[in-house]
């Protein structure tokens, strides 16, 4: 079965649903490559899933007659491969992926598309953000980065923000999604009721790809789709169900009603707990109610911990009771409202995990060096270590070499971005020391000068902000 989302991927920018402003911006950028390499060599397309970012990048290449080199998180996207393509392609001519010979003088450009760029930094094989930033600075070929989480990307790297034009994609509205679905249905020769199309579009809230997927599975084995077929499928809105549960818990006055609302929900208790936790303080505005409710959640969490350790799922129901009835009965005040939100902690947690990994690896290295455990290193040594690392250049260089700190680790210790110039200069100094390229004194003096310049710029910048 051919995936319709692939089959009907727009071939030209004109066919992209919605986002006309973004599309125009992209066109202007592509035109700026006509004669020379423009100042902003990269484009960063940001926005939620399935709303046409990748399609737009590919369609752009098609419209301008560029060859595409596409890489996404599932490729082994090591920095070298990216660099090879972006920089080597610059040397006048190159071969396209299909073996065609392209000369740059003929305008045959290669567009590098880095999909899922927000996953870029977690990858070991990347060789660091610095490598990508370097490519962005030096590339002679257009590069498009695509990301769901713009903040997650730019907080790690200031270069990316600086070297790229950032274009935000928004969810196309229901009517433009309906248009896309209608065209596909017509092309496939299936009759789909207009109401059904609307229902599918509405449900997917601007995610064109998943709307097309839904349409395909609806049509499967049918020649005609009526609105009843859609509703009979029993589409379930996961969030909506959870909202009802939350509202029951935060409003009901009986234990029975409260716990039933969780049992009806087909979700594991630890997931429900996160939803309650996130929304509770927005709803229970009396601190004493809140304290009692949190005590119940805390008890629920203890049961969940015991389940995990003992693998005894019989305790799940007590966890459920505490998070439902416990929270309901904690309430003495009367509250109104009921706008609930997705628990943002889930997204934050993955971010904190990567930071924690860095901290752990730093402490492990310090511990080994100081004949102690990572625990002790974290408790008794880390703060002073970081202080010296920040304030003393000699120490910084020596210890980075000795403990073999990575770019990421050095950046964390300095509270700088991974690809900031201080970190880059430090890494340069280390590699020079390792290769004995220069006299040590010279390397130190050189680094000191660069660090001073950096601090000077930083001071000026912060003065400028006033």
């Amino acid at each position, binding site marked *: 079965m051919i995936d319709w989302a692939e089959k009907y991927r727009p071939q030209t920018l004109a066919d992209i649903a919605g986002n006309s402003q973004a599309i125009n911006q992209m066109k202007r950028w592509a035109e700026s490559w006509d004669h020379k390499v423009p100042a902003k060599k990269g484009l960063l397309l940001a926005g939620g899933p399935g709303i046409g970012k990748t399609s737009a990048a590919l369609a752009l290449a098609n419209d301008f007659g560029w060859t595409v080199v596409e890489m996404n998180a599932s490729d082994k996207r090591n920095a070298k491969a990216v660099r090879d393509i972006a920089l080597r392609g610059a040397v006048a001519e190159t071969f396209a992926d299909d073996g065609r010979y392209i000369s740059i003088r003929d305008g045959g450009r290669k567009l590098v598309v880095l999909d899922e760029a927000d996953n870029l930094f977690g990858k070991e094989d990347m060789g660091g953000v610095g490598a990508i930033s370097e490519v962005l600075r030096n590339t002679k070929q257009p590069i498009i980065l695509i990301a769901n989480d713009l903040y997650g990307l730019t907080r790690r790297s200031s270069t990316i923000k600086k070297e790229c034009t950032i274009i935000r994609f928004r969810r196309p509205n229901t009517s433009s999604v309906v248009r896309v679905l209608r065209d596909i249905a017509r092309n496939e020769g299936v009759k789909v009721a207009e109401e059904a199309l609307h229902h599918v579009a509405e449900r997917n809230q601007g995610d064109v790809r998943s709307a097309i997927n839904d349409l395909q599975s609806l049509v499967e084995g049918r020649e005609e789709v009526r609105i009843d077929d859609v509703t009979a499928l029993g589409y379930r809105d996961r969030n909506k169900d959870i909202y009802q549960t939350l509202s029951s818990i935060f409003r009901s006055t009986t234990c029975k009603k409260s716990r039933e609302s969780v049992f009806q929900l087909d979700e594991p208790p630890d997931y429900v707990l996160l939803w309650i936790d996130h929304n509770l303080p927005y709803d229970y505005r009396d601190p004493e109610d809140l304290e009692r409710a949190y005590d119940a959640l805390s008890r629920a969490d203890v049961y969940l911990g015991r389940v995990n350790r003992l693998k005894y799922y019989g305790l799940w129901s007590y966890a459920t009771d505490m998070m439902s009835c416990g929270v309901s009965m904690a309430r003495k005040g009367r509250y109104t409202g009921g706008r609930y939100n997705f628990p943002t902690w889930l997204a934050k947690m993955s971010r904190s995990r990567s930071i924690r990994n860095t901290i752990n690896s730093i402490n492990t290295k310090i511990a080994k060096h100081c004949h102690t455990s990572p625990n*002790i290193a974290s408790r008794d040594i880390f703060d002073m270590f970081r202080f010296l690392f920040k304030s003393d250049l000699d120490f910084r260089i020596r210890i980075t070499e000795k403990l073999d700190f990575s770019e990421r680790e050095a950046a964390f210790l300095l509270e700088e971005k991974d690809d900031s110039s201080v970190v880059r200069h430090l890494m340069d100094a280390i590699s020079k020391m390792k290769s004995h390229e220069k006299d040590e004194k010279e390397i130190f003096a050189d680094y000191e000068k660069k660090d001073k310049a950096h601090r000077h710029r930083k001071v000026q910048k912060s003065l400028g902000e006033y």
Partner: protein
Amino acid sequence: MKEVWVEKYRPGKLADVAGQDEIVERLTAYAKTRSLPHLLFAGPAGTGKTTCAIALAKELFGEEWKINFHELNASDERGINVVRTKIKEYARTAPIGEGGFKIIFLDEADALTHDAQAALRRTMEKYTSTCRFVLSCNYSSKIIEPIQSRCAVFRFRPLKPEPIEKYLNKIAKAEKLKITKDGMASIIYIAQGDMRKAINSLQVAASLSDTIDEDALYKTATIARPEDVKKLLDIALTGKFLATREKLDELLIEYGLSGEDVIRQIHRTIFDLSIDEAYKVQLVDRLGEAEFRMVEGSNDRIQLEALLAHFVVIGLEMQKK
């Protein structure tokens, strides 16, 4: 200042170990006769346990000390696995040189569970012809009886001011620093008998100025993180839960603190808060409960939120008074 000073100035000879004269005397005797029982070093941090173990190995094995001295940390991989695999692997091979045995130094042995300690006991017996164990721990009472009875137990006490002062002066001379009288008094106060703390404070102060006085040391005290935890408590005590939670998330995410870190730092901070003394007792009790539930539970953040919700209520109660 190219090194971490605790490493740079770690004594290489037993005779140079500060403030543990009796212990040093007995260990030196072992080195001379080249006969060594299993040893158990018990005592608080920074009193010379690791230093003594390394110095002992150097005196026993000379140049070959690194091959015959194996350092393990029991808290790295909690539980029985360290004992079963790493120790056995190392203990099995024959010693190199004329020593006749090698040393396994197991740091933080009190982190091992009772099961792991029981397994360790059997291993100690099995490889006693090739290996000596030096176990190090904070509390000897956390080590099971059968192990204690197989070891010569050494109790390391917190260092007295004189040996700390003497050692710091040695470092100061080598680093061309001047420690003033009040500077020295402050270091000794901060260190509380912990040499590592003393040397760390000295190094940080030295990075600020060549003259180590009270002022320089006061500055070093502010480099630690508790500032942020104090802010967290201050916000909680104003009675705003959502703002408190935001600050908490910052600590957990941007600073990467673990739930345990936060609890520990709150504990350190509570007694310095300017609140009624009776409340401090109440808060500390709730803190202990939070840590207990954290150990039992699965989500550190929920336990911390529950704790902070309590702090919020206390804060409002105080405002009413």
